């Protein structure tokens, strides 16, 4: 009985260690997100770059940030979340089609 308890304790401390490391990663990704946001705002505020560059660039920044959110903040990279990820990607695909439909082939 005590054995399992000790075992549990060491398991618990190991898990806490892992959890702390995880938290550090999350802090780093938060820092990166802030940086990405700053860069995006700066690019627009400076007003020196061409539109053709700025718009795809902003898109890219947004997608990278979304990735950080999903994978670090929302733990999508953890085990057993495959179906959740699959359906989010399904949603993203449907979202992409919807956007394509509304933006590309409606307008004269």
């Amino acid at each position: 009985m005590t054995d399992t308890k000790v075992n549990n304790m060491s398991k618990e401390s190991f898990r806490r260690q892992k959890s702390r490391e995880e938290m550090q990663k999350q802090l780093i990704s938060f820092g990166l997100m802030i940086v990405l946001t700053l860069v995006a705002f700066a690019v627009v505020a400076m007003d020196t770059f061409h539109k053709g560059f700025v718009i795809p660039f902003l898109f890219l920044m947004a997608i990278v940030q979304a990735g950080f959110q999903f994978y670090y903040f929302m733990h999508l990279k953890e085990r057993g979340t495959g179906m959740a990820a699959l359906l989010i990607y399904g949603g993203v695909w449907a979202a992409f089609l919807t956007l394509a439909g509304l933006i590309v082939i409606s307008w004269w």
Partner: protein
Amino acid sequence: MATTAAAKRSFWEFIWDYLTTVDHKKIAHLYLAGGGFFFILGGIEALIIRIQLIKPENDFISAGFYNEMITMHGTTMIFLAAMPIIVGLMNAIMPLQIGARDVAFPFLNALSFWLFFFGGLLLNLSFLFGGAPDAGWTSYASLSMDSSGHGIDYYIAGLQIAGAGTLMTGINFIATIVTMRAPGMTYMRMPLFTWTTFVTSVLILFAFPPLTINLFLLMFDRMFGTAFFNVALGGNQVIYQHLFWIFGHPEVYILILPMFGVFSEIFATFSRKRLFGYTAMVFATMLIAFLGFMVWAHHMFTVGLGPVANAIFAVGTMAIAVPTGIKIFNWLLTMWGGQVTINSAMLWALGFIPTFTIGGMTGVMLGSNVADYQYHDSYFVVGHFHYVIVGGSVFGIFAALHYWWPKMFGRVLNETLGKLTFWPFFIGVHLTFFVQHLLGLMGMPRRYWVFLEDQSLDLGNLISTIGAFLMGVGAIIFVINIIVSAFGEKAAADPWDGRTLEWAVSSPAPYYNFAQLPLVRGLDPLWIEKMEGNGKIPAAEPLGDVHMPNGSIIPFLMSIGFFISGFGFIYQTDNVYWYLALYGGLAFSIALMIIRSVKDDYGYYIPKEELEKALEGEAK
């Protein structure tokens, strides 16, 4: 139909039981009853349409009422009849097929039903309060903005409420299949009906949000003066068309894919042979769903999207024929070499093959956009989609009802009456809809209140009307069959010599489904145990207390709140006092939501002893 149990309790107890139930099987009964009611309503509307078109320049009903009829017929049949009945079948069977005791969110399941029911009720109340919606089931923005009265507002509010319920059902079923499969029930051992339920639910999840948004946009334009579709302020009604069909095309697959599952089960069972090419069938289902999302613009070939878009969507549309073809041939090969028993359920399945194949082939023909310039919005299209939806979904629903009736209600439907349902209906379908293809090509656009004299359209329309009445005869015989069979013989647990888990429990299934969770050893688990074991599914756990969710009246009351607030939305443009209903209804529902959230609900346990007793009873 569980009459013995009902007889012991008073009528009000019986009603209260159904109002508060969270049991997936009882919710299935509610869905079937509600969907059946709306099916009859939609059928009557169809007959009124056909009577109006029995001869040229007929004046059986007025032009305005005719438009209300076509709108309500389409909307009712799709949203309030076909989908709920299909959801009801899924509710009744899918948890049993994967060896689960209920769905993932029993409370939400009840809420979904009541939202559907009150949404449908709201929509149909428009008939009593100043006119039903009259802009077609698509309710295209330009005309629905132009339509006076409150009909379209009812359409918006009703579908919004019912749609929310459907979306929850989708999430519920996906979660159920992902987390609650019995031990050993891997994804590639799931019966095809469960697979199609899964894929359909995914389609619901992704297809309904665009409809929700679309209805919101229309609602704001009509009720609050925004300008999404107001051309004078820069709006654009083609947005409506896009969003509608981004929803609308997957919707077609939502209606048909579950039926592919049903037929796969029926062909396998009554041929006494496993499904031919199971893996291909699963992937074909997914491929159809995937492609189904990418072809919506074929409903818009004549909008003027330009040749590039039209060409891409034309090719994409034709491509769907490939996975569908795989399915048809795999079904035929399932029967090949088997021992094919033809009973009512099988009759519907066999009738489905030629009927649906015609619907599919006209679908490919419509996919050729240049040909579609002629077909589009003509009776050809009407013929096509009725071949698909009646020949696919409705045949599927009848097949499924005959097949699973014993499991759902504990009685076997009468065979003779079953066959008598099929033949008039089958002949009626072809009489009604085949000529419509020709009528379309002969120059008859759809949604025509009258067709003029001397345009050679008389004979075709007459034949079509006769066919519609034959279908009505079939439907009436089915209702008679339900009543007759209610007094018939009780069903055995496994009346068809079935292959899947639902036939391993008694008919109707006990409220906890499985006393012990089953252990699944392969595809068609029951068949495997019949062939290699003792015919009984081994248990995956020792007999113990079974955890069950508590019933609740909250879903019912919450839906009433939304129902009342729906009226508020509709009429607040007339009188500000209606804001009371709008906010009052919403506040009521939100309060109930908070109550639900604040109260701890741990459910209850069925004690082991009770289960033991039940198992002994079954053994006797």
